C-alpha cells in the first residue's frame, strides 16, 4: 500500500510539470485555432529543441553543480561544429562522420578548457571568459570570418528527423547516466560535488575528475553544435561573447530537472525539463509570439518556478493552514 502510494507520488512528481505544460500549450494553441503538432516539421522542431536543450543542460549542469560556472560551452559548440563541418566538406564525409568528429572535437576543446583551468588554477568563471574569447577568435580566424555554409550539401543537411533526434536523446541519456551513475568517475564526481575538501583528503583525485567533466561537457556541446549546423546548413560566427547566449537556454530546464530529479534520476529530470521548454518553444513558434514577449514570459516562468522551489515548505504550510 505504502509502496504504491510512493509510486503514485513519484509518477505525479515526474509527470506533473511536462504534462501540465503540454496541456497548457495545447490549450493556448487551440484557443487561437492552431494545431500545435500539425506537420512533420513541427515534430522535428520539437525533437530538435528537446535534443539540443537536453544536451546543453547536461553540459551546463555537470560543471555548474560542482560550482564551476562555464561561459564557454556556446563557443565550444561553435568551434567544434566548424572543425567538423570543414573536415567533412573538404573530405566528402557523411553525416555520421560529422557527428563523430563534432563529438571528438568537442571533447578536445572541452579538455583543453579543463586543462587551462587546472593549470592556471583561476576560478572557472574567469577561465571560461578567456576560453570563450579564445575559441570565438579561433573560429573567426580559421574561417576568415565567413563561418561555414553547406546549405547545398544535401547529405549533411539530411540529418534532421524525429528518429535521428530520438536516437541522440536516448544515446546521450544512456551515456550520461552510465558515466555519472555507474563508473568510478561518476562516484568521484558525486563525492567532490558534495564535499570538495573531504573528498580530496580521502584521496579522490580532483584534477582528472575536473578535466573529465570539462571533456564530457565539451563532447555534449560538440553534438549540440552538430545539431545546430545540420539544421540550417550554416554556422554563423560570434565575437565578443556572442556565443554565450546558448548557455541561458539551459537554466530553466536545469531547475525543472532538479525538481523532477527528486522523484527519479536527475538526468531524466533534465530530459523532462528539456521537453517542457521545447513545448513552450513550439508554442511560441506556432502562435508566432513576438520575441520580447517570449523573453519576458520565459523569465517569469523561471522566476516563478524558482520562487516555488525555494519556498515550497512555506507554501505547503500556508495551504495546510
Amino acid at each position, binding site marked *: 500500500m505504502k509502496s504504491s502510494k510512493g509510486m503514485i507520488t513519484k509518477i505525479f512528481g515526474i509527470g506533473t510539470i511536462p504534462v501540465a505544460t503540454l496541456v497548457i500549450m495545447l490549450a493556448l494553441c487551440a484557443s487561437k485555432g492552431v494545431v500545435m503538432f500539425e*506537420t512533420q*516539421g*513541427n515534430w*522535428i*522542431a*520539437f525533437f*530538435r*529543441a528537446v535534443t*539540443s*536543450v537536453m544536451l546543453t543542460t547536461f553540459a551546463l549542469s555537470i560543471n555548474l553543480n560542482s560550482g564551476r560556472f562555464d561561459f564557454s560551452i556556446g563557443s565550444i559548440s561553435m568551434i567544434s561544429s566548424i572543425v567538423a563541418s570543414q573536415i567533412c566538406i573538404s573530405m566528402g564525409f557523411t553525416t555520421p562522420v560529422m557527428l563523430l568528429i563534432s563529438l571528438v572535437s568537442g571533447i578536445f576543446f572541452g579538455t583543453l578548457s579543463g586543462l587551462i583551468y587546472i593549470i592556471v588554477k583561476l576560478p572557472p568563471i574567469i577561465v571560461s571568459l578567456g576560453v570563450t574569447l579564445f575559441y570565438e577568435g579561433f573560429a*573567426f580566424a580559421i574561417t*576568415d*570570418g*565567413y*563561418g561555414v*555554409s*553547406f*546549405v*547545398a550539401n*544535401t547529405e549533411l*543537411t539530411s540529418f*534532421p528527423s524525429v528518429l535521428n533526434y530520438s536516437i541522440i536523446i536516448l544515446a546521450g541519456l544512456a551515456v550520461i547516466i552510465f558515466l555519472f551513475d555507474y563508473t568510478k568517475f561518476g562516484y568521484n564526481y558525486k563525492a567532490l560535488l558534495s564535499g570538495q575538501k573531504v573528498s580530496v583528503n580521502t584521496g579522490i583525485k580532483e584534477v582528472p575528475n575536473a578535466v573529465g567533466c570539462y571533456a564530457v561537457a565539451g563532447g555534449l556541446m560538440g553534438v549540440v553544435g552538430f545539431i545546430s549546423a545540420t*539544421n*540550417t*546548413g*550554416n554556422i*554563423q*560566427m*560570434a*565575437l*565578443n561573447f556572442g556565443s554565450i*547566449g546558448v548557455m541561458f*537556454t539551459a537554466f530553466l530546464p536545469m531547475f525543472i530537472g532538479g525538481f523532477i530529479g527528486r522523484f527519479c534520476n536527475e538526468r531524466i529530470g533534465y530530459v523532462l525539463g528539456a521537453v517542457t521548454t*521545447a513545448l513552450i*518553444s*513550439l508554442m*511560441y*513558434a*506556432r502562435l*508566432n*509570439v*513576438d*520575441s520580447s514577449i*517570449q523573453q519576458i514570459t520565459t523569465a517569469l516562468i523561471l522566476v516563478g518556478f524558482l520562487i516555488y522551489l525555494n519556498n515550497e515548505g512555506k507554501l505547503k504550510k500556508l495551504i495546510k493552514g
Partner: protein
Amino acid sequence: MKKLLAMILCIALCMSTVVGCGSTSGEGNAAADTTNQPAESAGTDEDAEEQTTAQGGMDAVAELDMSKTVKIGVLVSDSTTAESLAFQNYYKEYIAKNYNVELMYSDELVDAAGEKSAIDTFITNNCKAVISFSSFDRMAQLNQCADAGVYYAVATGTLTNDEYESVKTNEYYVGAIGPSLDVEFQAGYDMAKHYLDQGKKNFAIFGGALPYYTEMHIYRAAGMLMAMVEAGGEGANYQGATDKDGIVGKIFETATIETGSIGSINILGYVGGYDMDEAWFAKCGQMAQMDGLEVILAVGNGSDFFGTSAQGTDVKIASVDAYASAYGEAMEAGMLDYLAGKFSASIGPIFAATYRAALGSPIRNSEGNALALDQGYWVATSSEQFNEYYAVDSSVESPAYTKDMLDTLLTADYAAFSEFVGKYSFDDIKAIQ
C-alpha cells in the same frame, strides 16, 4: 600602502590625463592642433586654397601628391556577414595593395558609443579620413570627425534628405555613395515583381531586422508590398495603404508585416528578427513548409535560414545580400533563386573620393556640396549569371572597379564622378573596363 598606491594611481591617472588633454568637447581640434597630424592635409593655407578651388567645381584639379602613406579609418558595424567580409576583402586585398594607404578597421560596432570610441581611436592613430559602414549615429560621427579635422564618408548607404541638407557644405563631409532608401524600395519591388510577373500568388516574407526598425529592411519590404498591391487587382491594398509612403508608414506603426491577402496576392507567412533560438528556427521551418507557398522574399539573407527547410519543395527563395560563394552553391542547388547583391567593389568610388579629400582635393558639386550618389544592386536570377558576377566580384587581381578606373576618379570633376557611379550595373562596368 597597497591600497593607498592603488587609489592614488586611479585618481592620478584620471586627473593627469584630464590636465594633459584639455577639457572641452572640442578637444579633437585641440589635440589635432597640438600634433598637427589629424588635420594636416586640411590644416595649411595652401590646402585651404586648394579646397576653395575644389569647392568651386573642380575646374582644374591639382596634381595629387601620393608619396605619403595616408591612414584611413574604417568603421565596421558587422564583421561576420558576407557583405561586410566581401567589402573588407576588396579594401584589404586590392585597395590597400594598390594605393599608398593604411586602412585601420574598427572592431565590430554595436552602438553609437562604439562608433565614437572607434573614431577616437582613429584620430589617435592620425587617420586623415574615416569611411563609415556603421549607421547608429552618422551625424555624431561626422561632427566628431569634423571637430578633429578628419574627413568623413559614408559607404554603402546615404543620408536622409534632412541630414544631407544640414551637412552638405561641411568641408569635412566627403559624401555618401550607396543604395538610398529609394533604391532599397526599388530592390524589394523588383524582387517581388520578378515573381508576380511569373504568375506567383502565394508569398512569405522574411523581414530581417525590420522588427528593430532598420530602415533599409523596412523599405525593401515596403517595395515588395507595393509590387503586390499593384499586382493584386482592383482595390488591393496593404492594411489600407496603396502607395509607397502609406505602406512604409504602416510598417513603421507595427514593426511587422501582417499576413493576409493583398487583393489576389497572398502573404501566407512572415518571420522577422534574428533571434536564432529554437522558437525562431521553428518559425522559419514552419514558414518554409507552409501549404501552397510559392516564394519566400527575404529582405536580407534568406537561403541560410530557409534553404534546408524548403529542400524538396518547389518554394523559391529570393535574397538581398552580397556575392558570396555560399550563395553560388545555394543557387546551383536550387535553394536560392534570386539574389540582389551588392558587389564588393561598389565601395571603390567612395574610397577614391575620400582618398583625394585626404590628399587635399575633395570633390564638390558646382554649389560646393558633398557627394550624394545612388548605387544599386547586381541581380542574379540564375546560377550562370551568379557565377559570371561572382568571378568578377571575388577577384582581387581584376575586380569590378580596378585601379585604373578608380584613378580616373581621383581627378574627375563632379559630373564625371557622378556619371561613373551611376553606371553600376554589371554590363555598364564591363563596358567601362
